[in-house]
């Protein structure tokens, strides 16, 4: 079959608006699960990282630290598919929970998985913040948590923005395994189209699918750049030489 014919088949399939809707639904699901997964991941990851860097004087901290280590090891050590299958087909039946939206399971699993990675990223971010920042906060009488939340973590997040962007990109691409637990994501949408009418024609749909992923990734990259720029506001190194010279005259 030549390309023209393949294209013809694709166009005829797309004539049915149900498939257009399906693509947008898949796109929405992909973005939704990746975004909420990342948000949950950042929250969990930050909490876990805070435990990881906390001084280990107290027993409770040591216990939490072990739990966090086990959590990280599990979610980094197993593939996302396995985690999804496990959550959906093992844990849910085991707990006797029925009627849970597979998308919710997807979001939670993505969040837990991402939390493990973000915790490592965040730990690196926290240790990259000058220790003096934390000490100055503590010396002013602020508690450990306040010093972390108000001073250290915001600077850590700024430092790890590019890496967090990569994590988001990974999550977007990983949504393609959601079809294993019956979620219709972007990949599933195009697979459905490719296999529609028992007319198995993959080339065009999967090419377009790939292009959409690339565009998504480019958009995220752009967004991360913009956010970095906004953050950089507090980092303007020295003013323009002109302004400085003026100040010298004034003083």
């Amino acid at each position, binding site marked *: 079959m030549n390309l023209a014919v393949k294209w013809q088949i694709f166009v005829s399939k797309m004539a049915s608006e149900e498939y257009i809707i399906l693509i947008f639904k898949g796109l929405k699901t992909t973005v939704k699960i990746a975004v909420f997964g990342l948000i949950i991941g950042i929250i969990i990851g930050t909490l876990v990282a805070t435990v990881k860097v906390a001084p280990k004087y107290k027993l409770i901290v040591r216990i939490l630290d072990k739990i966090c280590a086990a959590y990280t090891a599990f979610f980094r050590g197993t593939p996302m598919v396995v985690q999804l299958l496990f959550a959906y087909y093992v844990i849910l039946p085991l707990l006797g929970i029925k009627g849970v939206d597979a998308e919710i399971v997807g979001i939670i699993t993505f969040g837990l998985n991402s939390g493990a990675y973000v915790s490592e990223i965040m730990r690196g971010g926290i240790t990259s913040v000058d220790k003096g*920042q934390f*000490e*100055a*906060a*503590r*010396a*002013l*009488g*602020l508690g450990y948590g306040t010093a972390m939340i108000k001073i250290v973590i915001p600077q850590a997040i700024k430092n790890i923005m590019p890496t967090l962007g990569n994590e988001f990109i990974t999550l977007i691409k990983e949504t393609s395994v959601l079809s294993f637990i019956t979620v219709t994501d972007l990949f599933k949408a195009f697979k459905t189209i490719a296999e529609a009418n028992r007319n198995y024609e993959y080339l065009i749909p999967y090419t377009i699918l790939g292009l959409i992923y690339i565009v998504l990734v480019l958009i995220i990259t752009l967004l991360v750049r913009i956010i970095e720029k906004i953050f950089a506001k507090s980092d303007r190194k020295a003013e323009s030489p002109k302004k400085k010279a003026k100040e010298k005259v004034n003083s």
Partner: protein
Amino acid sequence: MNEQAIIQDENEIVLDVYGITKSFSDNHVLNGIDLTVRKGEVIVILGPSGCGKSTFLRCLNCLEDPTSGEIIFDGENLADMKVDINKHRRKIGMVFQNFNLFNNKTVLKNITLAPTHIALKELRAKKIKNFFIKIGNFFRKNKKELLIIEKTKKEIIKESNDNAYALLRRIGLEDKANEYPSTLSGGQKQRVAIIRALAMNPKVMLFDEPTSALDPEMVGEVLNLIKEVADDGMTMVIVTHEMGFAREVATRVIFMDEGVIGEQGTPSEVFDNPQNPRTKQFFNAIL
């Protein structure tokens, strides 16, 4: 003893340190230091690099936990892990060699962050307590009195901001209030760091080589501010290598050597007539 020293002996004790030691694994940095700091004293600590000056200063507000010894402040032993160290640190200002202004906060926020946060936290705690007293009063015959809430949230924030602006005006950096620290010169940063500590109304201020990271032309402005604050009666413990400044501002000079106090006295005693051979050696090396 001269007259000034006698007056100071009658002043109340701000900080009383007994037998502080500090070891990092088998590196014994502090080997038993006693020090009584009275109100209004300006104590300058001198000593060769690595003798433990910074470590000692950091032990005073428990940024380093002393290995043994006692630090009595406000009637409590700060070295005791059970005391609320945050409460006491609010009254012990600290100025660092590297300024340590919060990079993610504006100059104004740097100054107001801690006072505002702490006052608001106390306000919340009071409100919660009052809530429970009210519930209790519902059942009580003789009603318990509610805690008095002097200031609202708004008033707390306003007062904290006003105070910060007044301090900024004092150092002539009012127009920098909404700038980020990265736009300031080293001297400006350190002066902001000093008023940030002052904004807490500390009972004593600790300075760890406050001018060592500065370009020479900026040292003066920072030393002048410290001197001004000292002249206002602030109690201070200062680690510095600025000998002229030490002589001028100190009421007592301490020479530290290998983790103990090698010698102490008035500036003229220590500078002009050092008794300890190590002190002499130190002055010969740097002068």
